[in-house]
């Protein structure tokens, strides 16, 4: 009995962590499905199959709430920042180009806003970066919000369902997502412009060659690294960098330092976020007896990417260009 009770304590604790872990695992992965309403057709109503949920938007949303930086930045990129009535769960400061427009938008919560905080601003559309944002202890279940007349939309790249999860994520899917968001938000033309911009950015990139990398997102005991089918692989691939863990069929994965050391990558991509800075990652790499032996660490061949740019969205193309530039500056890949 005492032992069982202890087990209960552990199980009682796990859901919180598991949920959170799921949430953080849901980064970037758009749906392979293309919008059922074509991007060119600006006419409402628009209906899309979003991670298995039918979402119908009757008219262009006027009061939008975004959760996660990727969605906030998507709305800003579509030129609709003035329709935002609230944001939540920021992963970091927005890029300079949208900083002014977003400055005045109320922050509902630095985490996922609760249902009341959400309803108080009377949104007509809630745009979430992760499926897990829409849960009873988060912003609310999607069907509950629908009954209240609030449309919900999840970044399709974050769908976890078989058949909806992108496998692998590609820039074409990211562009589809941008177009779909444009259609739903009533800005199809702006979406096309954004996509055109991104395509231009990517075309201007001269992919590197012969550079290997490990994309280290978080974790110290068991590093959590970019794997074969998610945003890290998409970005590295477009930059012409070979991902050491490309063979692992997952978006991100936990590995051991042994594999990292054995692979001896040319560069280390360090994801930078407020709660897990690239600086702390460098300090760890340089103090750990095994990783400090890596050539990339001894020669400080680090490449930094902001966390918010590593989820599928409008910053991925710039990140590719940025990576190529950073690696080039290290004198590699030319």
């Amino acid at each position: 009995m005492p032992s069982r009770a202890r087990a209960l304590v552990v199980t009682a604790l796990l859901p919180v962590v598991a949920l959170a872990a799921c949430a953080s695992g849901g980064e970037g992965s758009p749906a392979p499905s293309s919008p059922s309403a074509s991007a060119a057709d600006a006419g409402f109503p628009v209906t899309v199959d979003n991670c298995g949920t039918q979402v119908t938007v009757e008219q262009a949303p006027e009061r939008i709430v975004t959760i996660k930086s990727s969605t906030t930045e998507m709305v800003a990129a579509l030129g609709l920042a003035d329709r935002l009535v609230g944001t939540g769960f920021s992963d970091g400061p927005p890029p300079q180009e949208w900083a002014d427009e977003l400055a005045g938008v109320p922050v509902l919560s630095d985490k996922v806003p609760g249902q009341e905080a959400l309803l108080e601003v009377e949104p007509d559309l809630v745009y979430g970066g992760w499926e897990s944002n829409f849960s009873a202890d988060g912003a609310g279940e999607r069907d509950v919000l629908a009954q209240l007349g609030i449309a919900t939309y999840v970044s399709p790249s974050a769908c976890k369902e078989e058949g909806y999860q992108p496998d692998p994520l590609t820039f074409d899917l990211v562009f589809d997502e941008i177009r779909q968001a444009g259609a739903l938000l009533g800005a199809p033309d702006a979406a096309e412009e954004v996509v055109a911009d991104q395509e231009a950015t990517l075309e201007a990139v001269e992919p590197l060659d012969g550079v290997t990398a490990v994309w280290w997102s978080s974790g110290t005991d068991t590093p959590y690294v970019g794997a074969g089918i998610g945003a890290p692989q998409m970005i590295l691939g477009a930059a012409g960098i070979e991902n050491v863990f490309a063979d692992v069929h997952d978006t991100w994965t936990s590995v051991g330092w042994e594999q990292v050391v054995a692979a001896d990558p040319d560069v280390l991509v360090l994801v930078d976020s407020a709660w897990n800075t690239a600086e702390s990652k460098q300090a760890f790499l340089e103090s750990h007896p095994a990783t400090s032996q890596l050539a990339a660490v001894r020669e400080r061949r680090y490449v930094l990417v902001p966390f918010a740019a590593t989820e599928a969205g409008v910053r991925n193309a710039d990140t590719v260009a940025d990576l190529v530039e950073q690696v080039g500056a290290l004198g590699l890949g030319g």
Partner: protein
Amino acid sequence: MSPTDRPPLRPPLLLLLAVGVALLVLSVLVTVTIGPADLSVAEVARSVAGHLGLPVADVARLHDAIVWDLRLPRVLTAAAVGAGLAVAGAVMQSLTRNPLADPYLLGLSSGASLGAVAVLVLGVAVLLPVAAFAGALAALVATLALARTSGTLTPARAVLAGLAVSQLAAAGTSFVIFWTATGDSYREILSWLMGSLAGATWTSVAISGLALLLVGTVLVAAATRLDAFAFGDTSAAALGIDVDRTRWSLMTLVALLTGAMVAVSGAIGFVGLVLPHAVSVVTGPAHRRLLPVAAVTGAVFLVWADTLARTVFDPRELPVGIVTALIGVPVFAVLLRRGRGTAWS
């Protein structure tokens, strides 16, 4: 005749220990050559020999790092933690006269988790093992203080107080996680809560090895006193044991040992619960035999469980707690069947 009618076959202690230690040495030697990175046995041997000061040809720098800085400390930590948990579990089961007791019974793992989570999530500038150990000790002090408020330290009181402290610490952990719900620091916490040896360094070897050596020796020396508890407290007292003081000091020692183990590896389940039972089938319940053999068996067990954890899904890492549970639960089931009508009825 039921199986328990047979005179128990009890091999000599020295034979058991000799076999166990030989197995352990062999296990360490073999598992250190196993890993996701493709290293030859010769390379591994040269790396170890080189560090031991033997004149051998150099090994490639990174390969050397893999063997000497990743694999060997991890294997040795696994051995020390497995031994420590098995001993701690056996002692706790005797002290509480509860066959389902494990080393974490007094709220230790929850306390350690709270300490560790505070460090992982809040970014407190303390080393994780230190925080986990402090958390475990705080939980122990709280448990014993709570158990003490109502008089003598009976097993039932200690267990109930441990439960209350566990709940509180678990609530605290949940709160910290809830309050700081950012990014994916959870993954680290989850892996820590389930127990993992992935972060083992030579410091971990030192912490767990020293704790095992110091506390384990004292516990083995106290084996005779533990035997005296077989027929309960009064019986132990009549055999000249200071029941209260013995229980206090041994529980504290178990807590120190467990705290050190949790600090380096998180709360690895089942080793401390199942192994003492499995080992006592062979050694009998006399602690002078049980404790040393449980230590060696626990070491061998965890060395192999962790080797599975780090290699089966290469390159992915599996939390070792999953492996110990997967092996431990069936063993437990067999022991339950076997024990029907006797100790566990």
